[in-house]
């Protein structure tokens, strides 16, 4: 009989009649790294919320055994006391508090209610060392990057003497290098006897690091695999319930002449006007072509797209934009949309969608003139139009009146794409179009992108995932520290070549 740290047995959890978890079993061995895989909506987060006590005992059926004892957690505090700590996808640091204040938030090092700041700082330094972070404990959380914030969260977990560390999509917002560091750290923790559960869509990472992998699908446990030579395909098969032989759709090439061109594009930082964010960039897309921009975080890719899109970013912008052999002016977003540009932002929830509105309202918000006469909305037409997109995009809702806040990441992204397709653009910038989206939905998004290109639209994909860039794009630009450092055709491109260009700023376009 193996030594299990955690056993969850026959967990059933339903939300007003819909079963989110249906007799799920999960067994975690002491000291292992356990991967938890499944599509969005498979029940991974729900299961972890049951474990942490966010859903209190009684709101679900089934039993949890931790260290062999039956646990009935009433709240998160109960589970944290036993050393179970979850680090959520959305980081929970308070931006205007310092690192040390964040780490000991709710666990202040105090005597009679008075905080001992020296002790706090000393302990913070020890914890930061443990997670390999060299920063000043007095710096504000807002001033450090996402990767470092992630590590601060982990340091916070260690301040609570963690035994079972649960990481929900820990590398979603990190670049390759930061991800590598984090994975290495998790292995280090294993050597120190800490058990980890890692939830991730990045299957290569799971395969690389996990000892065992449990796959969930539609609220059921499909299987638990020993990680000995498992292929990603095997996991994907378990997750989607069928073989997904091809992760990228076949391209029907239909590439025409150069249609959209940017010349000598320079952008300065919006607050610090001295700082150059985009440095004399030249860029072009042909009709029906999919162009990729690869680069590390901070390379200036998003800034490039947003500054083009009606000066939504930056100051002191200069350069020429030529579309269909005519120079066009893009002074604001309204003009950009009028000239057929569309920008799908990297952050759906804060920049792409209005979470208070339904599918219909989000679909039409950038094209209200198309569904109105003299400023008065034609609501019937609005329903018809948004319903067409719901069907075409296969957005999984019963009708267009469902609130977008309740949709999965993949479906939310489809709503954002619907919004921009309704504006009938010729040039689309897609910034991290599949971030946080599961494998099945990714394929659907890729298919939609491919269809748009086949219809003769110019497409630019900005992505941190090199396989995605290599799989989708006909031509790839690389950026590093605000400069274009390379341009590679798909047939000549490999991860190594791109990586070199992305880190070498001396290269020539």
């Amino acid at each position: 009989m193996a030594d299990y740290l955690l056993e969850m047995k026959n967990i059933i959890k339903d939300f007003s009649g819909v079963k989110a978890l249906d007799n799920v079993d999960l067994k975690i061995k002491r000291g292992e790294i356990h991967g938890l895989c499944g599509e969005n909506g498979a029940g991974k987060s729900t299961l972890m919320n049951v474990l942490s006590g966010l859903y209190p005992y009684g709101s679900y059926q089934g039993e949890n055994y931790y260290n062999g004892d039956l646990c009935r957690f009433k709240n998160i505090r109960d589970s944290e006391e036993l050393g179970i700590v979850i680090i959520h996808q959305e980081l929970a640091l308070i931006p205007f508090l310092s690192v040390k204040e964040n780490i000991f938030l709710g666990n202040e090092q105090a005597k009679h209610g008075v905080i001992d700041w020296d002790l706090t700082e000393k302990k913070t330094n020890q914890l930061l060392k443990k997670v390999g972070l060299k920063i000043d404990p007095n710096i504000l959380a807002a001033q450090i990057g996402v990767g470092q914030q992630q590590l601060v969260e982990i340091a916070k977990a260690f301040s609570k003497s963690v035994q079972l560390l649960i990481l929900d999509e820990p590398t979603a917002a990190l670049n390759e290098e930061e991800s590598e560091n984090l994975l290495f750290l998790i292995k280090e923790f294993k050597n120190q006897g800490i058990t980890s559960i890692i939830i991730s869509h990045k299957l290569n990472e799971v395969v690389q690091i996990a000892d065992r992998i449990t796959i969930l699908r539609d609220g059921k446990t499909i299987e638990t695999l020993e990680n000995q030579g498992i292929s990603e395909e095997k996991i994907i098969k378990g997750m989607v319930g069928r073989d997904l032989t091809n992760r990228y759709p076949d391209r029907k090439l239909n590439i025409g002449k150069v249609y959209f061109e940017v010349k000598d594009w320079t952008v300065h930082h919006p607050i610090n006007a001295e700082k150059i964010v985009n440095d004399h960039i030249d860029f072009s897309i042909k009709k029906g072509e999919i162009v990729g921009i690869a680069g590390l975080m901070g390379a200036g890719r998003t800034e490039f797209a947003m500054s083009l899109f009606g000066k939504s970013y930056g100051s002191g912008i200069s350069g020429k934009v030529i579309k269909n052999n005519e120079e066009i002016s893009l002074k604001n977003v309204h003009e950009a949309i009028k000239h057929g540009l569309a920008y799908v932002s990297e952050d759906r929830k804060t920049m792409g969608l209005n979470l208070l509105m339904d599918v219909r309202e989000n679909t039409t918000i950038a094209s209200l003139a198309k569904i109105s006469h003299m400023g008065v909305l034609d609501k019937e037409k609005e329903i018809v139009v948004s319903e067409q997109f719901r069907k075409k995009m296969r957005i999984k809702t019963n009708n267009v009146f469902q609130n977008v806040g309740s949709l999965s990441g993949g479906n939310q992204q489809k709503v954002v794409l619907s919004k921009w397709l309704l504006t009938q653009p010729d040039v689309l910038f897609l910034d991290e179009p599949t971030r946080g989206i599961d494998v099945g939905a990714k394929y659907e998004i890729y298919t939609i992108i491919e269809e748009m290109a086949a219809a003769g639209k110019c497409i630019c994909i900005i992505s941190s995932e090199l396989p995605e860039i290599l799989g989708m794009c006909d031509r790839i630009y690389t950026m590093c520290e605000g400069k274009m450092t390379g341009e590679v055709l798909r047939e000549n491109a490999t991860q190594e070549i791109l990586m070199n260009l992305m880190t070498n700023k001396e290269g020539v376009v």
Partner: protein
Amino acid sequence: MQNSESVQKQEIGEKNLKKNGSVKAKFTGVFSKYSMVIILLFLLVAFQFLTEGIFLRPLNITNLVLQNSHILVLAAGMLLVVLLGHVDLSVGSVMAFVGGISAILMVQMKISPFLAVPLCLLMGAFIGAWNGFWVAYVGIPAFIVTLAGLLMFRGLTQVVLGGTSIAPFPKIFQSLSSGYIPDFMGSGSLHMTSMLIGILLTAFLIWSQWQSRNRKKKNLFEVDSMNFFVFKSILIAVTIVGMTYVFASYEGYPIILVVLGVIVAAYAFLTNKTIVGRQIYATGGNRKAAELSGIKTKKITFWVFVNMGAMAALAGMILAARLNAATPQAGNSLELDAMAAVYFGGASTSGGIGTIMGAIVGGLVMGVLNNGMSIIGVGVDWQQAIKGLILLLAVVLDLYNKKKKMA
């Protein structure tokens, strides 16, 4: 009120189009969405009982409308500000200031009300533009800009009025707040013109509902069953004709009620049916996403404050006309009443959620509480305390209902 009723009915209709659940689900859905309306109805019945039948007498209902009209006008303007996630604390002071200016124009300079009223509305719009400029284009939080406005315009009111009241206003201006529409076919005790208007309005509402139902059917959308449609139509008819009868058995429709009706209809149309309305909701719900969708959020914010200024000016004149005097203390702390009405009507303090129906019902609940408690003889001190408590409880109940529905 008639128009707001129709909006409510329309919303019920839309709701049923969306949800095709059981009768019970329908019932709980309607209850949680319209809990404020139900609270209002409960208060009406309770006060009718407690005041031994005085409360719902035609004279008192007419008074209720007259006494609260300026708050309802403010609430309508405030709704748009709150939808954007802002507040406007200056409206009480703006009311007093514009009221003072109107008195100077009409009483001291003897300018005709037909010229003075538009001038004062324009003045209010300029004050709104002042607030809106700082909020929208300079990016100073509305709380601070309008707090400054609150102090500034209260002070300026004292300056222009010289610390005293100015009275009396011309008769025709007073009738804005205390007049009734003339009875062209007058004979007997019942105000026939009002009755006729009420019946025509009912017919128009039912007809437009019928049109909308047919249009939906043609587009192959689900529509309510015929029985439900008939039930709804009867409800509309009973409510409107009933209320009209109450007014008609006193002096007929007050002029201010007609003004309110037009304002409510205009705001319902603006928020539900126009591009601008949709853009206001989008901006309040997620400003960044709205901007990236090509919405000119600064321009929208600016004009919403201009509109608020004009509505505050109108409210100020309504109050001055009813009191028949412009006083330095007029409208004191009414900005809070207006905001309470809007929040009470289900609006979110962070923007993006709220309806004109809600704001009006919220304002009416407060008015009913004031009026009802005064009739029973509750002292002003206790009135305030009770009002505060009931407001909190009502919002808690509303929140509870919404949570239950979500779970």
